[in-house]
């Protein structure tokens, strides 16, 4: 055993897979300690906040300021409000209005703005201009007015008695605050999802749930597959035929039909993550059963098994001591594959809306499902689905890498 383990940890593939898997596991355990709280709390109002650092504007206004005279500040402001395309669009407007723009310098912001203010009227509807374009000019006009706004923003508070606004403070263009001094700063490395949940926090929790789902599904599938495979292979005859028949029935009926029906019959309310995991296990044991059976068939006529039989050992004892140890490594590898299949199945089922019906726990599949329902993939909210795909892939990849490593250790003929 010790020797096997040492061998295993000499296999590069196994170690790589093991490291990735342990890293994911550690994250699942440690991250909630660093960032505690309910992973499903809807902190954002509205959908899909971009990844980044969010600074409370309310607190920032009340934080001590530092004056910084940055030469590029004004340029940055103008660039944000007025892009190169906007400038071209402004010239287009002038042309539509029949204004001579031959001596206008498109990069001269002041000249451009003067001409704009003199000639733009939101109520004009030029012939052939689309509604979308007219609306664009209206928005552009609004943002241009901000460039021309005064150098200071005035903060005012209502007077307690009269209710009139009294100026309390001003914010100038050169006022800066140090982010570390602002009372509330929230870092959302992966933004928020459609419900306004912190995606990173949810992802970590979901990875944990999905691993548990995988383990449950893998255990159920391996236990069923192993026991039926052992029975079928060892007993042969009618028992073999019958077990193979059951296995075939499970193979020929599409498993997702079984999954749906089982989950319907256990009732909607009970369709939690663990139940779905068991259901996945109940439908995915067939190939384990087949492979175990064929392994047992090749073992059952070996000399040591026959010797055991002659010695009058009970069937259970023969199976446990003379057959199981020989296929143990194989069963462990099959189990690992079943775990990764279980994780994938949950994700796939949830994506089709047939996964766990739970709102108390996050699973990778449910995250993917909600992201797709809210068209995250087509509206550019990559943070809502890509990390999920990557996490599933990494978990499954690490398990398979370990499996390949083990394969090479246990099957000397496979060694490079």
């Amino acid at each position, binding site marked *: 055993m010790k020797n096997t383990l040492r061998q295993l940890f000499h296999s590069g*593939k196994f170690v*790589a897979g093991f490291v990735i898997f342990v890293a994911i596991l550690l994250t699942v355990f440690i991250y909630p300690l660093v960032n505690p709280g309910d992973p499903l709390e809807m902190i954002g109002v509205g959908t899909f906040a971009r990844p980044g650092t969010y600074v409370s504007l309310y607190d920032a206004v009340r934080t001590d300021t530092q004056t910084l005279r940055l030469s590029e500040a004004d340029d940055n402001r103008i660039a944000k409000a007025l892009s190169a395309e906007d400038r071209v669009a402004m010239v287009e407007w002038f042309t539509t209005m029949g204004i001579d723009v031959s001596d206008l310098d498109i990069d001269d912001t002041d000249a451009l703005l003067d001409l704009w203010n003199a000639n733009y009227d939101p109520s004009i509807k030029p012939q052939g201009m689309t509604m979308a374009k007219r609306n664009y000019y209206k928005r552009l006009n609004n943002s241009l007015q901000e460039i021309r706004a005064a150098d200071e923003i005035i903060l005012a508070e209502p007077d307690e008695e009269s209710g009139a606004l009294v100026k309390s403070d001003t914010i100038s263009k050169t006022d800066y605050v140090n982010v570390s001094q602002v009372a509330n700063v929230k870092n959302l490395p992966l933004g928020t999802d459609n419900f306004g949940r912190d995606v990173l926090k949810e992802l970590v929790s979901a990875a944990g749930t999905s691993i548990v789902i995988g383990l449950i599904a893998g255990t159920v599938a391996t236990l069923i597959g192993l026991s039926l495979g052992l029975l079928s292979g060892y007993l042969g005859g009618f028992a073999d*035929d019958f077990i*193979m*028949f059951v296995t*075939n*029935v499970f*193979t*020929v*009926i*599409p*498993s*997702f*039909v*079984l999954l*749906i*029906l089982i989950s*319907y*019959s256990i009732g909607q309310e009970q369709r939690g993550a663990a139940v779905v995991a068991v259901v996945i296990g109940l439908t995915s044991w067939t190939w384990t059963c087949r492979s175990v059976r*064929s392994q047992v*068939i*090749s073992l059952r*006529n070996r000399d040591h098994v026959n010797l055991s039989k002659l010695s009058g050992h009970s069937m259970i004892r023969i199976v446990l001591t003379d057959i199981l140890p020989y296929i143990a490594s194989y069963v462990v590898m099959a189990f690992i594959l079943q775990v*990764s299949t279980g994780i*994938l199945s949950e*994700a*796939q089922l949830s*994506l*089709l*809306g*047939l996964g766990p019906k739970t709102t108390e726990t996050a699973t990778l599949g449910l995250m*993917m499902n909600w992201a*797709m329902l809210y068209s995250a*993939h*087509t509206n*550019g909210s*990559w943070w809502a*689905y*890509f990390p999920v*795909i990557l996490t*599933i*892939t990494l978990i*499954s*990849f690490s398990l*398979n*890498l370990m499996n*390949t490593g083990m*394969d090479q250790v246990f*099957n000397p*003929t*496979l*060694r*490079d």
Partner: protein
Amino acid sequence: MKGYRKYFGKKIIWFLITFVIAVILNFFLPRLMPADPVAAITGKMASGMTDASAVQEIYKRYEEEFGTNKPMWQQFLLFCKNAIRGDFGTSFSQYPRKVSDIIGSAIGWTIALQLPAIIVGWLLGNILGALAAYLRKGWDKVLMPVSLFMSNVPAFGMAVILLVVFGVNLKWFPIAGGYNFDMIPNLSWNFIKSVISHYQLPFWSIVLVSIGGQAVGMRSMSIYELNADYVKYARFLGIKDSKIVGYVFRNAMLPQITGLALSIGTMIGGALVAEIIFSYPGLGSTMYSAVTAADYPLISATTLIITVMVLLVTFLLDIVYGFIDPRVKAAQFD
């Protein structure tokens, strides 16, 4: 020969039993769902009606028409009788279309998408796997982990990524439908071009995932065979390397062919994700919408097709292996 006859006879009997049980399950399982598709049809047409008794009258009429007011076993006998003639009844969700009609229009797309994708993925994967096993060293060091990684990207993940990168961002290929939105099916070069370009993303999303798995499998089978005693013996005898390699890969292919046959057998279920994400017409999406709409006749018919295909493939494999693989033969006869 007598052994063979007994072996096949037994096989056939078990397959027949499996088939019968599967047909029964395919019929009854969907009907156990606590849903009432007749109510759905009624609802579709009754929205906005103020007169509640009129709605009930409609309900009764459809219950009568679909025979859902008859006992289950009568419905089953009727189903079997009609199914033999290729009539699977009328769809609930796409009423009044015939189930056979819906399947007829969808199955072509699924086969056209899946069959080439499975074969191409299989061929490319096996070539890469064999190369990896044969060349080893650097090639293998890169290819093996990459293949393994690719094979672990979930099918829907690959589909979504392809859709976002090549469809939404690069706009190289259309992302939905079977042919261009401004066309009507016809036999023109433009139309064929449009079908082909719509074909790309769903096709590659299937191929890319399966290449990895096939390559990993082929690689280990090949290494296994390359290290086998007969290869060492052949080398010892001085047989030409190219000849040995030929034997090795032929032997390594055997389990791979089983895999190919099985994935062809299960291809309808396999098309589900690609078809749904790319809104590609086909049986996968038909089956999915049938399930969500509790459309029993359509569910039973699609699952029956899957059942028959898988059964046929496993049966053929069993027969073929019974003939060609001495190991199976020995195992069966002792």
